[in-house]
């Protein structure tokens, strides 16, 4: 699952999958704008058949946050 998520993030942010790690954050990633954020959430939810509550989507700021939200 982790790999699948990393693949989605890397593809949408147009970056090397090797550069994706838990610490990657919205703040430090220029391409991770609000649109990219929604595209990432949308695709993860659909592909992994998970639900990330809307309120949580607004609070996520790192890849780790994202992983935590899905594990909940």
């Amino acid at each position, binding site marked *: 699952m982790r790999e699948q998520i990393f693949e989605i993030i890397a593809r949408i942010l147009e970056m090397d999958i090797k550069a994706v790690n838990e610490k990657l954050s919205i*703040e430090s990633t220029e391409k991770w*704008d*609000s*649109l990219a954020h*929604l*595209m990432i*959430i*949308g*695709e993860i*939810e*659909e*592909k992994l058949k998970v639900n990330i509550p*809307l309120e949580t*989507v*607004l609070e996520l700021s790192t890849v780790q946050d994202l992983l935590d939200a899905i594990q909940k």
Partner: protein
Amino acid sequence: MQKIALLSNVNMEPVIQNITKKHNIFKTTGYGNVFEEMANKNSQLYKYNPEVIYIIIDIKEICINCESIEQIHLEVSNWFSLFRKCINSHIVYFISDVDFRSYDMEIGTDDLDTLVIEQIWKKELKNVINDFTNIHQFSYKKQVEKIGKDNFYTNKLWYLGRIIHTNLAKDSLIKEIDNCLQLLKETQKKVLILDLDNTIWGGIIGEGEYNNIELSDEKIGLIYKDLQRIIRRIKNTGILLAIVSKNNYEDAISVIRTNQHMILKEDDFIAKKINWIQKDINILEISKEINLGLDSFVFFDDNPAERELVKNSLPDVTVPEFPNRIELLPKAMEEVYTKYFKKLTFTNEDKERSLQYLANSKRLELQKKTMDFTSYLTGLHITVKPVEPFLNRQRLFQLINKTNQFNLTTQRYTMVELEEIIQAPNKKIYAFEISDKFGNNGITAVVIVNLLNQAFIDTFILSCRIMGKFIENYIIDFVEKDLLKDGYQILFSKYIKTSKNKPVEDFYDRMGYQIIEATEDYKIYRISLETKLDREYYIKRS
């Protein structure tokens, strides 16, 4: 590569971003801007100069404030009359039919049936397609039906970012956009060549056994009968049918003449090559007989060896795949129709009809009306309200750090820095809440000015939600007048180039600022606040 544009009243960015990889597509400035782009001759859209424009409309947004069917009629006919004024004969348009994405309109009323609403749109769409040869339908509702509403729409992304489409829907829309482009490119096919055995009926005819084939009103027989019904419909659109089949002529023709389930009749075929000669040779002969090029032929045959032969020996003939599951046969023929025979370009007769149409009074009427962007903007009842920055610092923080397009300097600030700016005596921050008749867009503009000896615009940001409506003209005017009141006669500003803010690279030039320093990466401007010209904007005074 063709230059295309996709406009919509909802956020289509995910689709557009995906298409970028395959086509040359217009990067919209903001979203929801259909008429902002189309009615304004100087818009970014026309600078881009598209050859094909797709317009995908979410009907729910169009009638969000409607409470009766009459109001919906009015909104839809307004939309189309505005659209008609924007039509450019050099551009090909694909306008979507619509799907009402929820059923909430139906609550408590019998009138506002979603199907009825969709029909209102469709009727107007048909009219405009009939009136103009360069306008075609984009089949949107079909995409929804294939996937189902629940899989097509997302509530979460809608509330978070005005995106209504799921990933699945996005892929489906991209495919349809591709199909339309393909149709534009393809030469119109005119002839459908059919095999007989196991193609338009099941089984193989033997000598004297004319009713031994699968063609009936049930099970496998019904599949072939349905297939024949579709082929007959295709024929009725003006497509020519021909038979190329390896059989004894007498046996085959007897089946066609006498089998009671045959939908296709002998006379439906303009040529019947029922013999034991190679199929490619037969096809060539038909081409000579009816004097049509091989590129207008489609060859449909269940036998892969025959398909391979024709493909190799007559590469101009289109040879679609044959479905590997028998129940998909009628559907496969439907696809053959949409892919190769569906009319996109009009026949000469159609063209004449529409020319006649254009010659009548309505044409004069259409030409008299100029592009009336002004009255559209006035009709939006846009209001701009300055708000207190400190109370709204969370939202300002977000705007400053996440806006990329309409952002003149892309200067990012942390929360601490922002709070300092708000309180600093030598800085001034302006924030604006913007609404129109469709609702409140919230705080969607922020300007930061540095006040040392001179006034200098440090930050000028507008959310993409409100771009394209001359709101920025009002805002800069507001700021300039305020600074002039404070005693500043000269105002400086700056544009810093990023990969995303190209749409505003000449913003200050348009506002009448003079460049005093320019490099590849930035431009510095100045304007005299006492002598500056009036600006064009359409803001309702509240």
